[in-house]
């Protein structure tokens, strides 16, 4: 600690240059925090999905499946509960205000989504009110909704019988559920309301949610379900929610690889930036470093001093950058429901900062260590 003023003074010797470099490094760590946070949020979201929830979809197209198939699925050994689901992709006031509404069977929703905690009274209220809707706290906060509000949803994929895309719903409850795989951040509306009110595809659903007893039996049960409808007009494809989420992510591309590549490129450039700053700083301070050696600082001590300077600079920059990124995590949770694990991310970030400091600080530190006092004092 007693060397801190000396280290700090070394960093701020040229304040303008130090501030610009600091901003660059802060920016890099902010980028790292946000991108890695996004990646970890995605992975966490996938990991949070339950392996005992299956989704059954049409094997050959996006055509919906007749809800009559649910009776057969229910009879498959190991199936605990089933439910039809129609995603009603909607907007609210503007086209950018997307509302993830799901038309579901209120009587089955808690049975098919383990961990989802919605009070029974709220479920009953939804059952009583055909145009009722219950919304997650995340959505209610985002759009300022409260119980009693009438919300005119503008569906993008389901037309109303009157020819308009508008589906008015009445909010009868706002729920907060920390668990649940499918519905914890959604708006839930009655399947019957949508099914009876739409112009086409009555009596069908594009997705069946299937809850099973034993997650280890997911594969055989999915195969049994699909076998039931093999060679029929409505062949099915069943998989766990986790498998589907992973497949969807893979379709976008290897997000982790892309993010790591971006972060690696940024830090590679940063290595040169910080290295050049440190090298220039040491070169400019040659006489001062020679004086420190004159006063009794050893070669190793001087090397340590320069490395400590590099380390302090990088750690302070990382702390600011990662701190700013951490401030964005609650916003990400509120907007897209991502639950980002800040702890491991911070540890990785600081480890990266230490690596950056050591690699970029080593060449100037060695230069300082090898400094010949007599030559340096003589200006040679």
């Amino acid at each position, binding site marked *: 600690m*007693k*060397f801190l*003023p*000396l280290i700090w*003074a*070394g960093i*701020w*010797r040229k304040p303008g240059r130090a501030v610009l470099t600091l901003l660059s490094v802060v920016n890099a760590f902010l980028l790292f925090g946000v991108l890695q946070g996004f990646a970890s949020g995605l992975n966490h979201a996938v990991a949070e999905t339950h392996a005992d929830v299956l989704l059954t979809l049409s094997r050959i197209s996006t055509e919906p499946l007749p809800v009559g198939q649910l009776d057969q699925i229910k009879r498959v050994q190991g199936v605990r509960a089933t439910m039809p689901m129609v995603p009603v992709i909607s907007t609210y006031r503007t086209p950018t205000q997307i509302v993830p509404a799901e038309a579901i069977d209120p009587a089955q929703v808690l049975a098919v989504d383990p961990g989802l905690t919605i009070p029974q009274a709220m479920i009953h209220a939804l059952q009583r009110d055909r145009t009722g809707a219950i919304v997650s706290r995340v959505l209610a906060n985002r759009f300022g909704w409260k119980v009693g509000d009438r919300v005119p949803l503008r569906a993008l994929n389901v037309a109303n019988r009157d020819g308009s895309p508008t589906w008015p719903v009445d909010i009868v409850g706002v729920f907060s559920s920390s668990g649940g795989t499918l519905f914890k951040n959604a708006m839930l509306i009655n399947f019957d309301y949508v099914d009876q009110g739409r112009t086409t595809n009555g009596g069908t659903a594009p997705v069946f949610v299937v809850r099973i007893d034993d997650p280890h039996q997911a594969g055989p049960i999915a195969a049994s379900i699909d076998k039931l409808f093999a060679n029929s007009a409505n062949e099915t494809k069943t998989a766990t929610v986790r498998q589907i989420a992973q497949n969807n992510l893979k379709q976008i591309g290897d997000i982790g690889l892309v993010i790591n590549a971006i972060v690696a490129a940024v830090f590679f450039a940063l290595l040169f930036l910080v290295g050049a700053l440190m090298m220039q700083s040491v070169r400019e301070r040659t*006489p*001062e470093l020679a*004086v*420190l*050696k*004159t*006063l*009794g*600082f*050893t*070669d*190793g*001590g001087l090397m340590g001093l320069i490395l400590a300077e590099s380390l302090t600079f990088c750690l302070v920059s990382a702390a600011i950058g990662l701190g700013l990124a951490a401030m964005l995590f609650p916003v990400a949770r509120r907007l897209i429901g991502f639950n980002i694990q800040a702890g491991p991310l911070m540890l990785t970030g600081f480890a990266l900062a230490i690596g950056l400091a050591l690699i970029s600080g080593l060449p100037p530190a060695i230069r300082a260590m090898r400094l010949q*006092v*007599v030559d340096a*004092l*003589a200006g040679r």
Partner: protein
Amino acid sequence: MEALVGLKHVVKRYRRGRQVLEVLHNLDLEVAAGEFLALMGPSGSGKTTLLNLIGGLDRPTEGEVDVAGERIDQLSSGRLAAWRARHVGFVFQFYNLMPTLSAERNVELPLLLTSLSAAQRKQNVEAALALVGLTDWRKHKPNELSGGQQQRVAIARAIVADPTLLVCDEPTGDLDRETAEEVLGLLQQLNRGHGKTVIMVTHDPKAASFASRIVNLDKGALVPAPAMASI
């Protein structure tokens, strides 16, 4: 009086490319403890080289350098650095202060290598600054101080760890006459009042007159006193 510094048959050669320059030739010198020695001579005579050898900043090519009872020509780089911190205070012509540190932080630098507590370091720094008359300027950075004040900060830094020997390379070379005399008076006070042995390189006969002994160096060898007149 007992010799604090003893040089025996010291030779110093430098290699400049293919050329080998012998800067000091078979030099013998003794400096007694408590002495104020002025080292004079023309440019290129080897004064600073000799001072560097005595201060443990450089090693002789041949010969022995004994300072404060230690054969410093035989010490490893690390031990030599520790020895310098303990035994020698340096004062340079251009002060060589850290521009980003305040006067008191500059003075504190040698104490960072000791095991003194923060409170003890502060106390020693205050005492050293008081001795050079700069207590009120302790928070100022070097660029806020005059040349004379900066040199006094450098002297405070040189004495703060209570070294046996003060090694001064042209300490008044960058100062006007009046300030130079103040600085020389301060060195004299440290020598007479505090028992510090001072070895000072100078071109200036007036500065040399503050010393208790003058040694003249010419072309890498000590020359008899009459050569003084020609300087």
